[in-house]
């Protein structure tokens, strides 16, 4: 049985939570909260903390079980199967959408002529290699890639300072807190993606009391740090482009990368960054593949190899159904809003609540 350390939990959690959220974050929150959009990011990510803590407390009570297995034990076999099948379908569908988003990012920014199947094929090979190597290898991959992604994001933000528009962030809260609240609601599903993934990961977490205590602290670190990174990117996008332009740009971060000039000698380094963003995309797609794989293995009791045969065709077909970039943006937002958020909310609260109620009895 594979196990990951608490440090690996931290890096894996951060890598999966961050994923490629830094691409749409500026556009999403600025469209709701205008120049105050950056204020919405951290509260939205902190929203995931109580749910993550609930899952860790379930892991403590039901060791070496994932969320589907715990559901079967607490709510009954059929409820476990229903939630399990929902989780499988949503994770495979969302993983496919994210794979398409990774391709979309490349097509729009640096390689417009490469057919998207070429990207998908090579991307899926990497995802399969990661998934096949196991969750521990994936965690190690995050230990290397996540710090690089974080440094690249911070570097992009710092190198964008010469492009800041004076006073663009002012005035604060011109229209009160309401638009900020709408901004928070827009991105609340993002930390819930991590919550769903954590549901599958429970089985592989360390089981000691002290380690679980450490992981409770690390959940805070994960969501706070990822929230800070996303807030930084949003802040910079609004500061450089202004709220209207930040809303208009599909991937504001890529445009920021194109604007970086160091002295008069270095420019056009966005392609270096794009390779790093590909690493982030790979982590996120792999995470949802893992989730689907664990789900299929648990619900249908299939062996790993057979489970792959179930997931690969569905996940690779989904990107083909979305050839329009504009449709992709809508599909991702809708999947987040109407599939991931409700599933994570209902599932975790219901399970934790029933488990707690039974314990009291």
């Amino acid at each position, binding site marked *: 049985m594979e196990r990951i350390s608490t440090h690996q939990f931290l890096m894996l959690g951060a890598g999966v939570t961050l994923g490629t959220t830094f691409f749409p974050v500026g556009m999403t929150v600025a469209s709701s909260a205008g120049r105050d959009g950056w204020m919405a990011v951290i509260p939205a990510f902190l929203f995931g903390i109580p749910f993550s803590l609930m899952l860790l407390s379930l892991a403590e009570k039901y060791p070496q079980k994932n969320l589907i297995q715990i559901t079967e034990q607490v709510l009954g076999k059929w409820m476990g199967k229903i939630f399990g099948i929902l989780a499988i379908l949503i994770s495979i569908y969302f993983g496919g959408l994210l794979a398409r988003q990774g391709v979309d990012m490349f097509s729009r920014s640096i390689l417009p002529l490469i057919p998207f199947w070429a990207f998908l094929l090579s991307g899926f090979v990497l995802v399969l290699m990661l998934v096949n190597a196991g969750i521990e290898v994936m965690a190690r991959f995050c230990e290397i890639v996540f710090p690089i992604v974080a440094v690249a994001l911070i570097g992009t933000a710092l190198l964008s300072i010469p492009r800041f528009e004076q006073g663009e962030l002012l005035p604060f809260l011109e229209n009160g807190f309401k638009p900020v609240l709408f901004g928070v609601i827009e991105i609340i599903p993002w930390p819930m993606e991590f919550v769903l993934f954590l549901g599958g990961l429970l089985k592989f977490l360390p089981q000691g009391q002290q380690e679980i205590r450490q992981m409770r602290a690390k959940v805070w670190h994960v969501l706070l740090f990822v929230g800070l990174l996303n807030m930084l990117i949003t802040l910079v996008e609004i500061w450089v482009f202004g709220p209207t332009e930040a809303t208009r740009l599909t991937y504001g971060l890529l445009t920021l990368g194109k*604007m970086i000039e160091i002295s008069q000698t270095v420019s056009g380094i966005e392609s270096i960054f794009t390779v790093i963003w590909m690493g982030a995309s790979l982590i996120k797609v792999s995470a949802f593949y893992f989730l689907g794989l664990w789900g299929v293995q648990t619900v249908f009791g299939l062996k790993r190899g057979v489970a792959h045969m179930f997931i690969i065709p569905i996940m690779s077909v989904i990107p083909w159904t979305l050839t329009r970039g504009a449709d992709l943006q809508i599909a991702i937002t809708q999947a987040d809003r109407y599939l991931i958020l409700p599933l994570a909310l209902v599932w975790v609260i219901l399970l934790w609540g029933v488990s707690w109620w039974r314990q009291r009895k």
Partner: protein
Amino acid sequence: MGNPTLGGELVEAKKIKVILKRGLILFLIFSLFFLEGCWGKKEVDQLAFVIGIGLDQGKKPGDIIFTFQIAQPKKGGQSGSEINNWILSTEVTHAPLSEEKVFEILNRYPFVGTTKILVIGEELAKSGINSVIDSFQRYYQFRRTMYMIVAKGKAKDILNTKLRNDQLPALSLLGRIEENKAVSSFPVTRIGHYLTLLSREGQAPIIPVVDRLQPGEGGIDYKGSEGGEAEELLLEGAGVFRVGKLVSYLTDQESKGYLWLENEVGTRFISTEEMNGISVTAKVIRSKSNYSVTQDEKGPRFNYQLKVIVAMTEVMGSQPPMSPEKWAAFTGDAEKLVAQAIEKECQAAINKDKEIPNDFLGIGRHIEQKNPSLWKEVRNNWEKTLQDLPVDLDVEVTIEHSGVDRNTPVSPVNPEGTRQE
């Protein structure tokens, strides 16, 4: 003892694994012969590196004339920096179509990722540029760091100017813009900045103006080739835009006033008017502008505060030798003179801002920043409010030093033939 059947299966499985691995290695080696690189890959010698683009109104309604200034490295040049200047104009209905025209003529793909300068012809600027520049902010090769310039006359003529130093006009303009902080005599507008300002309610964008300079024009003379063609370009003043249309020009003085008020002055020289036969030229070392919005019973009031540190670089007029104390007093008077000169430039900009009335100074945006509730009250009738708005100016100048000397050169005999006191 182990199970012989199980042992046999393990050996068989290992064999299959080895075969699969070898097969994979062979497949990878073999596939190298079919991989030629990225899709749509173009070699360097298939590309035409565009440095500047000029946009003019076409002859047919709705057409645009695209002028590409292409910097092509010279084959066999003595140094790597030697380039050929290729200029090509093409009339198209939509910006991206110009790419295929260039290819049809040059047999090279224009690579616009290197474009640094976008020159907009006067006529096109007056009819509106927002839809024309859409491609420049959408197409992935372009960068939002490109500089925008408005041409007096045609953009094509600016890029076709044969400069006396044989430099490419686009590169010459780029050099001046990038070193602008050293003289701070004209505003700088990148396309990204233009787009940001375009979306603001309380501020209109401005773009610097370039003109061809013939010998003897504008107090500048040079020896040109025969025929009297302009062989120099002058970057001076700015064009004010409203909803993407050029609506007015700023003079040199007005655009310098804008630079003071918008905190865009790096270093520059400023001369004062004569007072008691003495005038001073100072070099600005640092400048900082601030603003405040107040409200009294008469309504809102806007106030600019400027703090400028200068060094005296020239004192014109004859002065008697001065003691250090007298010199200190004179420096205090000179500070007032410099402040007056700065105020004059700023006031010219403020007057123009109210006169157009198109708020290129962003007074409306500043009010929004400082007092959002006041802005909500005045935004719907901003142009009228701007015309009546009292704008105060408070300039504080400090002469940090006066160079290596105090007063002007001293002669024992003054011009009238009497000895100096």
